[in-house]
C-alpha cells in the first residue's frame, strides 16, 4: 500500500516580483516499509519536497495523499493534527527542547494528542527511549547527552506516536562517523521492523544505508533507483570500532 502519493506537485514562491519554481511538477509513490533517501544539491527543491511531505507547507498545485488521506484541503489545524498523528520528524539540529529532560521531550507529541483515548504518556515515552537504547538516561537534559544520544532522543520522539512514516532531514549532518553509524543502524533497525523512513541527505555514504535513492535537480526527480549492495550500519560501526581500538592500541605501544 502506498503510504505517500504525490501527484503533479508544484510549488512556486513569489519573492518580490520574481516567481521561484522550487518544485516543477513531481510524482512520487512511497510504499509501506520503504527506506527512501532524497538527494540533490542545494536549490534542487529537496527541502521544499521535505516540507511538503511533512505537511509543513502546502503545494501550489497537485495532490498529496498521506496514508489514504487527501491533504490539499486541510486547514492549518488539520495539518497540525496530521503532523501529530502521521509523521515523526527527525531534524539535523536534533531540535530538542533545551533544559527539558529526555523523557519530557519524547512526551511532547503525546501532549498534543487530540484523540480521546487514554494514554499513559510517561510509559509510552519510556518505552520509546528504551527502544532507542536510552532507557538509562530518561532524566538527562540534552546538554548532558552526546550528539548521537540527542538524535536518538529525537528518534524516540518521532516514534512515540507510531506515525505512518518517519521524515528525517539530514539526521547525520551534525554527527561524527561513530554517531552516524549509530543513528543509521537505529534507522535500519526501525525499518527492519516495518517502519517507513524518508530521509533527506546529501551524503552518498549515508544514502547507501537506505533501500531507494531519489535524486532531485532543479525541482524535479532526475533519478529514482533501488540501492544495490546495501550496507549495514551495524557492521560499519563494528568495523570502525575495531580500527579505532587498533589505532588506540598502536598509540599505546
Amino acid at each position, binding site marked *: 500500500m502506498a503510504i505517500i502519493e504525490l501527484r503533479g506537485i508544484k510549488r512556486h514562491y513569489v519573492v518580490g516580483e520574481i516567481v521561484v519554481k522550487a518544485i516543477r511538477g513531481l510524482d512520487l509513490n512511497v510504499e509501506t516499509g520503504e527506506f527512501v533517501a532524497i538527494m540533490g544539491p542545494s536549490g534542487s527543491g529537496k527541502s521544499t519536497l521535505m*516540507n511538503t511531505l511533512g505537511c*509543513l507547507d502546502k503545494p501550489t498545485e497537485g495532490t498529496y495523499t498521506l496514508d489514504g488521506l487527501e491533504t490539499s484541503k486541510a486547514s492549518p489545524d488539520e495539518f*497540525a493534527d496530521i503532523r501529530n498523528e502521521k509523521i515523526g*520528524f527527525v531534524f539535523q539540529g536534533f531540535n530538542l527542547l533545551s533544559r527539558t529532560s529526555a523523557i519530557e521531550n519524547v512526551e511532547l*507529541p503525546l501532549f498534543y*494528542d487530540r484523540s480521546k483515548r487514554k494514554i499513559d504518556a510517561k510509559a509510552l515515552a519510556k518505552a520509546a527511549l528504551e527502544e532507542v537504547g536510552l532507557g538509562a538516561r530518561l532524566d538527562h537534559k540534552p546538554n548532558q547527552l552526546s550528539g548521537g544520544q540527542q538524535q536518538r532522543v529525537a528518534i524516540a520522539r518521532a516514534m512515540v506516536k507510531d506515525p505512518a512514516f518517519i521524515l528525517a532531514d539530514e539526521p547525520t549532518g551534525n554527527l561524527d562517523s561513530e554517531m552516524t553509524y549509530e543513528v543509521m543502524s537505529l534507522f535500519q533497525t526501525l525499518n527492519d521492523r516495518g517502519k517507513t523512513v524518508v530521509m533527506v541527505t546529501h551524503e552518498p555514504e549515508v544514502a547507501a544505508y537506505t533501500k531507494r535513492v531519489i535524486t532531485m535537480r532543479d525541482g524535479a526527480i532526475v533519478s529514482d533507483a533501488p540501492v544495490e549492495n546495501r550496507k549495514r550500519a551495524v557492521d560499519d560501526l563494528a568495523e570502525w570500532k575495531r580500527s579505532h581500538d587498533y589505532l588506540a592500541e598502536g598509540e599505546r605501544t
Partner: protein
Amino acid sequence: MTVSKLITASMRSILRNKMRSFLTSLGIIIGVCSVIVMVAVGQGSQAQIKKQIAAMGTNLIMVMPPRGPNTVNRLTMTDVQKLRADSSYLAALTGEVRLSSTNVVGGPNYWSTSVYGVEPDYLKIKDWPMKEAEFFTDKDLQSRTKVAVLGTTVAEKLFPGEDPVGQSIRILTTPFTVVGVLASKGANAMGSDQDDVVMVPLDTAINRLTKDRKIGSIEMSAVNEGLMDQAQAEVTSILRQSHKLSDGATADFSVMNQSQILQTASQTSQTLTTLLAAIAGVSLIVGGIGIMNIMLVSVTERTREIGIRMSVGARRRDILWQFLSESVILSLLGGLVGILLALFLAYVMKTFMHTPTLVSPAVIAASAGFAAAVGIFFGWYPARKAANLYPIDALRYE
C-alpha cells in the same frame, strides 16, 4: 489539551527560568503589594477616625456657626437657654467657647493650652470621668465663680508631683481656683492631646475671658439613638425661631449629628485612599508592561521551541494558550506574592510603627483579579505573535 496539562507545561517553562520569571513578576508583586498597603493604610486611618468620632460622645448633635467667608456667628447664650427650656428629646446640653493657645500660669510654671468654657453636662455628653475631685456645677455657672478643671497634661505641666486641687492658677490675667482634674483621654484621631485642656464654667469664660456674648458651639445628646432625627429637627426649629428666621431663609447655623460629622471627616481620608490606590494601580500597569516586554523577548528567544512544538502537532491555539497561560500564571503568582508581602507589611506597620492598617478581603480579591487581567491583557499580544509564526520559519530560526 486539558487545563491541568496547560498549567503543568506553563509552570515547567516558568521554573526553567526562575530568575527571569521572578524579575518579570516583580512589577506585579510591587504593584499588588502597594495597592493593598495603600488601601490598608487609608482604611485603617478611616476606621480610627470612626472610632474616635464614636468616642466623641453618645448620640451627639452639634450646632455650629456657618463656615466660610462672609459668615457671622450668631450663636449666643440665649440660644442655649431656649434649647434647654423648649427641647423634649435632649438628655444633655452644653454651650461651648474655646480659647486656643492661651497662657496659663500655676505657681512658678506656665503652659500654653486650650481653655474651654463649658457647662456641667459636657462630661456627660463626652462620657468623660473625673480623675480627682469634682467638676464645677450649675451653681458655679450662675454665680460665675472663677474655678477651673485641669486636663492631666496641664496638671502635670503646672504642678509636677503636686496635688493641683485647691491650687490657684492664672488664665490670661484672671485668677482661678483648681477644683478638679479630668481623667486622661489620650490623643484623638488627628493626633492632638485631648488632655491638654483647662475647663472653666461657660458664663465665667464669656464674662472674664472672651468678653463676647457669642458662643462657639452647642453640643447635645439625644435621649436615645432612635430619637436622633427628631431631636435634630427640633433643635433646628427652636434655633430658627430664636434667630427669627422666616420660612425659606438660609439658616445662620448648622446642625450636625454624629454620623454627619463622621461623613465629613472620612471624606478627606477616603479621597486620599482613592488617590493612593490609583497611584499604586499605575505601578501595577507598569508591571504589566514589564510582563509584556519579557514575553515578547521570550517569544523571539523560543521561536525554535515554537517550531518544534508545531512540528509535533501543536495547533496555533495551543501555542497561544501556552504563552497566555504563562503570562497569566506569572502575574497571578506575582499577585500572590504581592498579597503575602502586603499582609506582612501591614502587620509590621501596625505592630512596630503603630500606623493603623486594615486589610480588607475585597481589596485582596480585587488586586488578585486585576493582576490576572493585567496578565491576560499584556500577554495577549506576545501570545498571538507566537501563535502566528510559520512552522517552517520557526524551525529554521537561529
